[in-house]
């Protein structure tokens, strides 16, 4: 029933969309997410889904079409990447502010200029505060699983928020990997029927979307949004539990790898976590208590769980595949540091910027970071709080 297959991350995401059978998909394909739409439009042409495919003239319009369709009362999904996500930015806030449960696959890619089509997290980090839920995937399997769960999370009656599911551009989106399919019947039963909330097409109960809300009420809507966000982790775990029943794969808000007794640890998201785990295994064999923390749910950020997971560690390196320009640290570091600052017991934390524009993250990079952490754990001294790794000096 659960077939093992070889598939790209894009293929996995496209098939999760096929299983969800959205009513509408507004899209403007972009590298490296193009294959998602190429495959999905084939499903539409072949009659494998009942989706109304809207091929827009830009990502701004694609997201606008998604917003209109979701407000009308349909299940909506799309996919994008990089400049496309950046161009959607204005509409992302509208999708979340209107509480529309749109699901979007994102093949995370660097931002221009200089133009670059390869994987990093700059696009997603630019959208981190748009009020969307953000999940990150290590490989094609996780992209598939996260995408299936994203529909349930977005459409959860305590949530009703858009979700973007990230995977590393090219590294995950284009690599053919072994993964386990879930048969269509089981997976589509798991996702379930779409239940619309206040649909515009319900003409017996007319509604208006997008009113002007000024100084007297705006903060109340923002506080309400923040409150809904705070309940998302509970829904994510609830959905994960049900997903485990059909897949045998267990998901949390984050993944801890050999972290419980770790003295040094690397925090890293998406595909680089795989390489890091390999290197951690080698260090463990040599007697170094090393571990990995891989955040899965990035927005809302699970501060309490992160604090609990890292407080006993002596030295931590946060690896960011994006940078916040302006002398600051990387975006993941900022959240990890903010989480740990509220704990009396906390590790020394350093920040490494890596893999920008698809630059390879090699085992040797993880080895060097772990060696540095072992030194910091021993003498308590940090030489460099933030550093680019894998860059020519």
């Amino acid at each position, binding site marked *: 029933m659960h077939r093992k297959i070889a598939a790209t991350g894009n293929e996995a995401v496209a098939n999760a969309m096929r299983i969800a059978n959205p009513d509408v998909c507004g899209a403007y394909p972009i590298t490296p997410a193009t294959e998602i739409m190429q495959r999905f439009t084939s499903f539409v042409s072949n009659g494998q889904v009942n989706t109304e495919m809207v091929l827009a003239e830009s990502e701004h319009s694609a997201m606008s079409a998604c917003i209109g369709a979701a407000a009308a009362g349909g299940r909506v999904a799309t996919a994008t990447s990089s400049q496309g996500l950046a161009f959607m930015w204005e509409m992302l806030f509208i999708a979340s502010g*209107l509480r529309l449960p749109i699901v979007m696959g994102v093949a995370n890619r660097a931002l221009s200029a200089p133009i670059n089509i390869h994987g990093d997290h700059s696009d997603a980090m630019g959208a981190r505060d748009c009020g969307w839920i953000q999940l990150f995937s290590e490989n094609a399997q996780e992209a598939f699983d996260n995408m299936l769960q994203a529909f349930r999370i977005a459409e959860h009656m305590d949530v009703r928020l858009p979700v973007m599911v990230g995977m590393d551009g090219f590294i995950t989106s284009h690599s053919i990997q072994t993964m386990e399919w879930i048969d269509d019947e089981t997976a589509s039963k798991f996702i379930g029927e779409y239940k619309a*909330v206040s649909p515009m097409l319900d003409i017996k109960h*007319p509604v208006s*979307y997008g009113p002007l809300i000024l100084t007297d009420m705006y903060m*109340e809507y923002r*506080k309400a949004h923040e*409150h809904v966000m705070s309940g998302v982790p509970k829904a994510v775990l609830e959905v994960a539990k049900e997903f485990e029943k059909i897949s045998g794969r267990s998901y949390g808000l984050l993944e801890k790898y050999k972290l419980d007794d770790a003295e040094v640890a690397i925090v890293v998201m998406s595909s680089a976590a795989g390489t890091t785990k390999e290197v951690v295994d080698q260090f463990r064999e040599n007697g170094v208590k090393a571990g990995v923390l891989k955040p899965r749910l990035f927005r809302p950020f699970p501060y309490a769980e992160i604090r609990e997971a890292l407080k006993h560690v002596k030295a931590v390196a946060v690896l960011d595949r994006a940078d916040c320009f302006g002398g600051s640290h990387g975006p993941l570091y900022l959240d990890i540091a903010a989480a740990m600052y509220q704990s009396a017991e906390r590790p020394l934390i350093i920040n490494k910027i890596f893999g920008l524009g698809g630059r390879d993250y090699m085992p040797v990079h993880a080895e060097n970071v772990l060696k540095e952490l072992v030194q910091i754990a021993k003498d308590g001294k940090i030489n460099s709080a933030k550093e680019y790794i894998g860059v020519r000096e």
Partner: protein
Amino acid sequence: MKTWKEVTPGAVITEPGSSRKFKTGSWRAFRPRWIPENCIQCLLCWIYCPDMAIKVKDSKRGEFDYDYCKGCGLCALECPGKKGNKAIVMEEEGK
């Protein structure tokens, strides 16, 4: 006023026709005054008013609906008046 716990998700308005409750007349900085003796009942003000704030009964215009008149002054501009005397003049609010 509603608290954040009471607002509808996504600011969706579920009550049709509720914009009537939004008295936009409070935005007004200038107030139109109707001078019936200069009015030829052409109803141009009624045609041009963007807020349906000219009350018309039996094909005759009556008083302004100050609950919704935003004081844009279009009616006063378009009013042909009688022998060069406007039937609508704009006056500063609060004077």
